[in-house]
């Protein structure tokens, strides 16, 4: 791979006007901020963070429902660490606070950890918060299938899983959307394959490059993307071939298909998008926490937080009126500030003011 200096020289030499690139993966958001890539790019190139952080696109009302469920004394709530500090519609109210008030909330690295918690606590219900995109969906499916095989009746999954393509299509249809190319998420592409992103150039005329996560990978992918934009021929390039195959991971896709079916899903910032969520199929209803506990999600409440505009690329984090004032990583109002992959957290944490 060419050196950073070479790539930056090539980027600067490209005949480009103002260009806005969107990355749609929380790991990219953090990696870009951590490596200080924005400070290296010419001023005409802007990097925006799209709806790539699964926590950030979870509506506050869903978190409210999670918080309510967490207080059930007969229940252990298992979650990835990112969800622990996310506030619901009341700032400061989070699973972390509920845990301090007595809720049994456990942090897991994998849905399989939650399954083991269930196996060790047969007298309690264990609910796993299935958050993420196609990257975490296969692992969540594997846990449901394993729970079925082992007959673990006290285990269930609350699926908040979402899929990337419908969200990107909805995003591109948003009024005022102004992005000239997508830096595509290597992790999701590992599962979906190159084919998962072909729709971008093929049906949306949108330049797209699949990128890895080392700072050099990202710079290389950005360079490829900018070259594409400069030559005006949208196509899909795979700049992460060491992990991403054209067809993706067939086994993982098959597992997802066995366990989940597409459904309407509410996204923070984007609203309801048809077929953009993954719900448990009817045959797995016994492991579906929403059905098991009759979960209801309240109507969307207005908030001063501009997370929605941030994740659609309409607003840079510092232009949210709460940014760095009422909303900081230690007292977050919006999920973009609390999630370790959120655009606001990345900006607040790493950006030189």
């Amino acid at each position, binding site marked *: 791979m060419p050196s*950073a*200096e070479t790539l930056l020289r090539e980027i600067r030499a490209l005949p480009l006007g103002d260009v806005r690139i969107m990355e749609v993966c*929380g*790991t990219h958001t953090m990696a870009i*901020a*951590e*490596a*200080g*890539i*924005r*400070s*290296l790019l010419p001023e005409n190139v802007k990097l925006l963070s799209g709806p790539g952080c*699964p*926590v950030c696109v979870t509506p506050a009302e869903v978190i409210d429902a999670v918080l309510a469920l967490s207080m059930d004394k007969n229940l252990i709530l298992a979650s*990835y*660490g*990112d969800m*622990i*500090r996310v506030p619901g519609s*009341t700032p*400061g*109210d989070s699973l*972390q*606070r509920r*845990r*301090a*008030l007595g809720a049994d909330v456990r*942090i897991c*690295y994998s849905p399989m950890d939650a399954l083991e918690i269930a196996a060790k606590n047969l007298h309690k219900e264990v609910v796993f918060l299935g*958050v*993420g995109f196609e*990257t*975490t969906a296969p692992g969540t499916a594997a846990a449901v299938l394993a729970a079925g095989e082992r007959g673990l009746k006290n285990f269930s999954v609350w699926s908040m899983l979402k899929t990337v393509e419908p969200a990107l299509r909805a995003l591109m249809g948003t009024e005022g959307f102004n992005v000239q190319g997508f830096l595509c998420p290597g*992790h999701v592409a590992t599962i979906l394959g190159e084919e998962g992103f072909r729709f971008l150039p093929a049906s949306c005329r949108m330049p797209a490059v699949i990128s890895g996560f080392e*700072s*050099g990978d990202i*710079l290389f992918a950005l360079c490829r993307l900018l070259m594409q934009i400069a030559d005006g021929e949208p196509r899909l390039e795979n700049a992460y071939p060491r992990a991403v195959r054209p067809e993706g991971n067939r086994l993982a896709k098959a597992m997802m298909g066995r366990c989940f079916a597409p459904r309407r899903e509410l996204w923070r910032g984007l609203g309801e998008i048809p077929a953009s969520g993954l719900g448990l199929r009817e045959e797995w209803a016994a492991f579906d926490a929403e059905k098991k506990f009759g979960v209801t999600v309240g109507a969307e409440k207005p908030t001063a937080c501009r997370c929605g505009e941030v994740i659609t690329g309409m607003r840079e984090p510092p232009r949210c009126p709460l940014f760095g004032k009422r909303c*900081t*990583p*230690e007292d977050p109002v919006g999920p973009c500030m609390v999630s*370790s*992959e959120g655009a606001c957290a990345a900006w*607040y*944490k*790493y*950006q*030189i*003011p």
Partner: protein
Amino acid sequence: MDEIITLDYGSGGKKTARLIENSILPALSNPALNALTDGAILGDLVFSTDSFVVDPIFFPGGDIGKLAVCGTVNDVAVCGAEPKYLSCSFIIEEGLPMAALSRVIASMKAACAQAGVQVVTGDTKVVERGRGDKLYINTAGIGFLKYPGLSPAKLREGDAVLISGTAGDHGTAVMLARSGMMQTELTSDCAPLNRLCAAILDTGAAVRVLRDPTRGGVATTLNEFVEGTSLGIELAEGAIPVRPAVKAACAMLGLEPLYCANEGKLLCVAAQEDAEKLLAAMRALPEGENAAQIGVVTANAPGKVLMKTALGGRRVLQKLAGAQLPRIC
């Protein structure tokens, strides 16, 4: 909504600072406390205390007993004092195997011998099962001030920022032990630092400040040096020694080495012309063998710690906001 204490308040970062400033200082204020140094400086005496609640109580490279001795010894030593006497209180949950307690005490004995300190007073309490977690230890330490005047207020533009070895070993080793996820060679760096402090200060170099970057890690300690001042610190990412295993484990666990606790490392700010001499003095001891200069004090970024990244970009390195949380993917 009523404010309650959450784990974030114990992380050693911004919320801990807020707890101290808003809840503790207003009531208990006095000149020695208000300085908020690792130990109180009382004329020729330095006095410090620390509580240890680590889980698990045994971890690769140490245990809660070794940690309780080293932690307090180090807090006294970085003030420029020679640590001498410790107090030790045990809060034991009933059900703890006697053998475990004996093992912890044996390890305290070894650490005391290594550091040249004695436990001269103590206390034991046993609480009902479920009202504590196996074993908590509090130690306090007294030392005699030998090198007065160390303070972050002494920093000058152009000073060198040095570290005595690799960053993030303790925090990462404990997190790995807790997760039970991976078997690695990684061990905690838990060690007494009084010999290293003395070796540094005996060089006669213009040392401005010493600090052991425990909770909150290197990033938080460096921020404490410069916050609210007209000076900043610029670090060079490539110069910061981090073990490959720590880097890899942190990447998997969603942690950052510069925010992970260290229990056997020193940060030292000193005049740039003395940097080589100090690095040589540190490297002469096993606990300082990986010492390196990691940055400089600058007037360009008042109150901030900046990082020049491996790619050549620049970013801010903040204080830890709250407990580090593992990530989704």
